[in-house]
C-alpha cells in the first residue's frame, strides 16, 4: 500500500506543478502575442501606441488607393465613415477581395506621424461578413 500512497502524492505534486507551469507559460505567451485593435478614431486621437504591433480597421476610402509606380508599394486611407481617417502604407499583394469602399483589417505598426505601416491586410471573404472589430464602428456618430 505504501508505494501507492507515495505514488499518489507524486501524481498530485506532478499535476500541481504541471498545471502551474502550463498556466504560467500560457499567460506569458499570451502577453507577448496579443494584438490590440484600434478604431480609426483612436488612431487619429492618439490613443493607439506608436511602433507597437497593433490591428486597426476601417473602410477603404474611395479614390484613396494609390499604387507606387515601381514595386509593390501601395497606400490607401481607412476611415470610420465618421470623419476619422488615417493613411495605411503596405508593401505586398493585396487580398483578392480588397476593394475601395469595403471594410478591411490591417496588422502592423504606427509611426510617429500616425501613418500605419501594415504587414498584413485582411479583407472580408463574404458579402455578409464583416470583421466584428468593424461592426461597432458604423453605428456611433
Amino acid at each position, binding site marked *: 500500500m505504501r508505494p501507492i500512497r507515495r505514488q499518489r502524492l507524486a501524481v498530485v505534486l506532478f499535476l500541481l506543478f504541471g498545471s502551474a507551469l502550463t498556466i504560467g507559460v500560457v499567460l506569458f505567451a499570451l502577453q507577448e502575442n496579443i494584438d490590440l485593435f484600434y478604431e480609426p478614431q483612436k488612431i487619429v486621437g492618439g490613443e493607439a501606441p506608436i511602433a507597437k504591433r497593433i490591428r486597426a480597421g476601417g473602410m477603404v476610402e*474611395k479614390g484613396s488607393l494609390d499604387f507606387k509606380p515601381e514595386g509593390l508599394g501601395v497606400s490607401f486611407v481607412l476611415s470610420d*465613415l465618421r470623419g476619422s481617417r488615417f493613411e495605411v502604407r503596405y508593401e505586398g499583394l493585396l487580398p483578392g477581395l480588397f476593394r475601395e*469602399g469595403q471594410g478591411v483589417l490591417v496588422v502592423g505598426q504606427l509611426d510617429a506621424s500616425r501613418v500605419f505601416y501594415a504587414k498584413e491586410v485582411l479583407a472580408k471573404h463574404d*458579402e*455578409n461578413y*464583416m470583421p*466584428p472589430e468593424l*461592426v*461597432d464602428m*458604423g*453605428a*456611433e*456618430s
Partner: protein
Amino acid sequence: MKRAVFFAPLIGFVALVAILYAGFHLNDPSRLPSALVGQRFPGFQLPELTSGKVLGHQTLLGEIRLVNVWATWCPTCLHEHTTLMNIRRATGLSIVGINYRDDGEKARRWLSLYGDPYDFTIVDASGDLGVDLGVYGAPETFIVDADGIIRFRHVGDVNDRNWNREFLPILDSLTDG
C-alpha cells in the same frame, strides 16, 4: 471533499459557457446601439430607381414607413425579399427601398424578377446616404415615422420572428400614439 474533485470539469465548463455567452452578446450585430434612433432621417437628393426622378428627404414624410437598405449583391437580401413582399401584402405598410452601392440595371431586373414591395426605391450608388445612416451592411431596415424621425433600426434580414417580436410592437406604439 475527495468527491468534489470530480465536479471540477463541470465547474470549468460552466465558466466556459459564461465566457461564450458573454462573447456572444458582445458580437451580436443586431444589437447595434444606434445613435440615430430618435433623430431625423438624414437629408438627401437622390434619384428614384425606375423613374429617375430626384427625390428629397420630404418624400418620406406623412406616413409611417419601413426603409429597407438592399442590394443585388447581397444574398441575404434575396432571402429577406419574400418577407418584405408578404409584409407589404398583409399590412399595406409603406416600404421604401434604398438600393445601396449597386448597379441600377441589375436592381431593376431584380425587382421585375422577384416582385417590387417598395413604394419607391432611392438609388444610393455612391453609398453616401448609407454613410449618413451608419449602415453596417445590407440588409438593414429602419422604421421612420410620419414626421421623418427614425424610430427603430434593425441590422440583418427581416424575418417572421423578429418582425413579430421587434417591429410590430414599435409599429403598434406609433399608430396608437
